[in-house]
């Protein structure tokens, strides 16, 4: 019974993996927006990224 459940579960994992690859799923965090005005192409400054105003990395050892 348990082995059958695992077989079913494993097939679901494989099927989901195949579907995810085919549809191009990703683990990256990306913000999706709708209806960006066409004027952005002519005036890039009219669009403001939600990630803008990054305050800078202060890395280094």
């Amino acid at each position, binding site marked *: *019974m*348990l*082995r059958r459940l*695992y*077989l079913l*579960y*494993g097939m679901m*994992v*494989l099927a*989901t*993996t*195949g579907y*995810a*690859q*085919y*549809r*191009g*799923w*990703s*683990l*990256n*965090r*990306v*913000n*999706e*927006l*709708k*209806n*960006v*005005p*066409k004027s*952005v*192409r002519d005036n*890039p*400054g009219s*669009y403001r*990224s*939600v*990630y*803008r*105003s*990054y305050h*800078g*990395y202060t*890395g*280094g*050892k």
Partner: protein
Amino acid sequence: MSAGPPSPPRPGPQQQPATPQVKALDCPKCGAAIVLRTFGKAETVVCDSCHSILDAQDPKLKILQTFQAAVGEAPPLIPLGRRGKLRGVDYEVIGFQRRSTEVEGIRYIWHEYVLFNPYKGFRYLTEYHGHWNDVSPCKMLPTPVLSVPPKASYLGETYKHFQTCTAMTGFVVGEFPWQVRVGETAEVTDFVSPPRVLSSEKSENEVTWSIGEYTYGSEVWKAFNLPGDPPQAMGVYENQPAPVHESVSGVWAAFAAFALALLVLMIGFAVMISGNKEVFRASYAVDRNTFKGETSFVTDVFELGDRTCNVEVETSTDLNNNWIYLNYALINQDTGQAWDFGREVSYYYGRDSDGPWTEGSRNDSVVVPSVPPGHYYLRIEPEPPQGFQHIGYSVRVVRDVSVFSIYGLAFLALLLPAAALTWRRLNFERLRWAESDHPMVTTGSSEDD
């Protein structure tokens, strides 16, 4: 500790059904009424009133032993005289004894119930901390198997040695098919093959073998129609069936097959399905002298074809002990749909007392998921650090790439249930054998102890 009878049962009449025979006699010591439920079959009977052990085979009930029962002696969980149906056979509880053994200064106590059916003879129920065993005498002599630790074979099944201890009878009441005595001791050896336990009981004169099968308290309660709930089973008992009944190796075999299928899937997608097609590439730079005013810009339009699938945006820089933040927007020229993301690229290096070190990377990539086909362009807005001089970077857009982290997640998803099942099974076995003469994990002790 599951040892049952020290003597084999005597078969009852086989020819004709008979009603249970009950005979009332008086105790020769205190005069209390003695009920013999197995008239002719029991060897001893115990007076419930004065605790005299009487010879049930003697018409005058000769006194064999008297003992002092402890004040507050707990009554049997199944009252004497209670009838029930165990494995389809009617039995009556006719005797009860409390036995114990002492191991490393700790006294372990268990209880044994004598059951009787006039046609089937005697049967036994043992109980230890809520764990029950249905015990009957062996029909043939088990054979020892030479091994370390020892094993025994019975009816084609091999049993592993679990424990050998000295059991002492501490309290008796009711009837017994053997010459029971309070204070008598016997060497009890248990061999287990869950859910069964094979027990030998060695006394001065004889060795008897019995076979027990683990029984849940709820089954006993149902069989004897007892009120309330059975005592909660504590810990893991020697022949308690594992919660994971099936072989864990079967699940691991399935895991191996799935892992192989996952590898085939990964290679198949990478080689045959994933396009991995470069659709755009360009190089840019931010310079301190020209970095003024509006710094965002858009790229040329590129086409993302085929089907809805991912897009990888790669950034390569010439950073040296510096960083740059790039605001990206992948915009569909036709629909206005956009994917907005920011990427920080930083690369630092140097040398200290530990030697050379590096931190970060000059390159970065991000995979934008499920982008429909269409005409796209990138809006890029660089944010360099203050005091920068010149940072060059290039952007490359690749359509339909394999995301190997998804395979990693799938591998983990396949591995976790198998690992959890194995851990549960191993932990259960560890707890089982912890109480045996052969624990799986021994606790360390120094030689000075």
